[in-house]
């Protein structure tokens, strides 16, 4: 089984909040048809949603649940389309390990903390968290500061990290990292 690759996305936080609020409202009102429309569900998936006691019950199921899995996939697709723009994908499966453990980065506390935030999936909305997956985000200022601080260490860093720094510094806005979107 191959290790997943980290991708970098430009995050539109307002759009993400908008989609999230819409989803929350539909679930709270248990508006199945509204939810089916938001997620662009086909007839079969819409029927599956309608068969539940409450739509939120389906959303609480495990990611790998056969009934819920295609609905989660639709939800992530909608969120990606609305709020994320793909910037870059690493070619190296070792990037996450390097970011988490490379001693030159770990010795710089501010850099290490920012990287940990960027790789902390708990900070993502529940529908972007995936079991065993890596993900996280930084706002525009934090992203720019991290890119500059890491760039200054460039000669001491391995190629896969420098490629990441180049992508991080070359984009604008908030950054979201994920390996399973």
């Amino acid at each position, binding site marked *: 089984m191959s290790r997943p690759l980290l991708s970098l996305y430009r995050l539109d936080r307002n759009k993400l909040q908008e989609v*999230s609020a819409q989803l*929350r409202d539909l*679930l*709270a009102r*248990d508006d199945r048809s509204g939810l089916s429309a938001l997620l662009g569900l086909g007839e079969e998936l819409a029927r599956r949603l309608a068969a539940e006691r*409450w739509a*939120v*019950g389906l*959303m*609480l*199921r*495990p990611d790998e*649940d056969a*009934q819920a899995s295609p609905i989660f996939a639709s939800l992530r697709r909608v969120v990606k389309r609305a709020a994320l723009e793909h910037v870059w994908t690493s070619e190296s499966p070792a990037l996450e390990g390097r970011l988490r453990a490379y001693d030159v980065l770990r010795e710089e506390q501010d850099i290490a903390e920012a990287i940990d935030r960027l790789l902390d999936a708990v900070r993502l*909305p*529940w529908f972007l*968290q995936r079991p065993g997956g890596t993900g996280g985000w930084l706002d525009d200022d934090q992203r720019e500061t991290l890119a500059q601080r890491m760039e200054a260490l460039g000669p001491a860093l391995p190629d896969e990290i420098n490629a990441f720094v180049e992508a991080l510094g070359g984009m604008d806005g908030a950054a979201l990292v994920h390996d399973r979107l």
Partner: protein
Amino acid sequence: MLLFTLAGKVPLVGFFDRAKAVFGLQKDSPTPGSGPAPRAERSDGRQNKAGRPPLPEVSGAASATIEDVLVARAAGSFDEARAILAAIDKGQGLRTVLRAAAALEARDEDEVTTLLPLVRKDSPAWQLRLQVAAALENGPGREDLVARGVKLGAPAWSIAWLRALSSNDDEQRAGLVDLLFEDAALARTVAARDLGFADIKVDNDAIRRYTAFAHGRDVIRRFGAAQVVALLARVDGGSP
């Protein structure tokens, strides 16, 4: 351990008989040499202000638990339950709260007065209010406790959890959705454990938080939420 010593000598005696022996509630005196004798009544034989004989003080009862208290209360042995609480109380937390509530129920003002400052110090203060609210049916009493919990800084997830436990379907669903967005791992755990959703798995990331809150709620429910409500009215109302 005295409980085990007694159990070893009298294997057919039930728990309550052993507990009574430990707590000095038996008519017969304990057998000399069977372990450290429990300290019985106050040595000066004084009665409290209400003319009530003091509860027996005990030592060596560390192996008793809140479960023993609940079992004793369920059997109608309220004095025995109070004696166990007095023995296992460490001066903070749920045991102190229950001890104070039981003292209030028994109108033992001396003990209530002694314990109230400890209950007031209980931290986080919002948690007890919400645990009691969770042990109550929907109604003004529950809403009042939630409002007090919010005032004391109850986090959004705790309020969402409480709503998710409502007996009203719409309220329960809205609470579950709030909880999903506040703390998805806890939402899954509450849905699986409290709401009986068969296809949802308990989330191990949330199980510690779940049990810390739910244990208190369940114990209070079995103990008698009304007694703890009365105690909190004293605590929050500031009456002497």
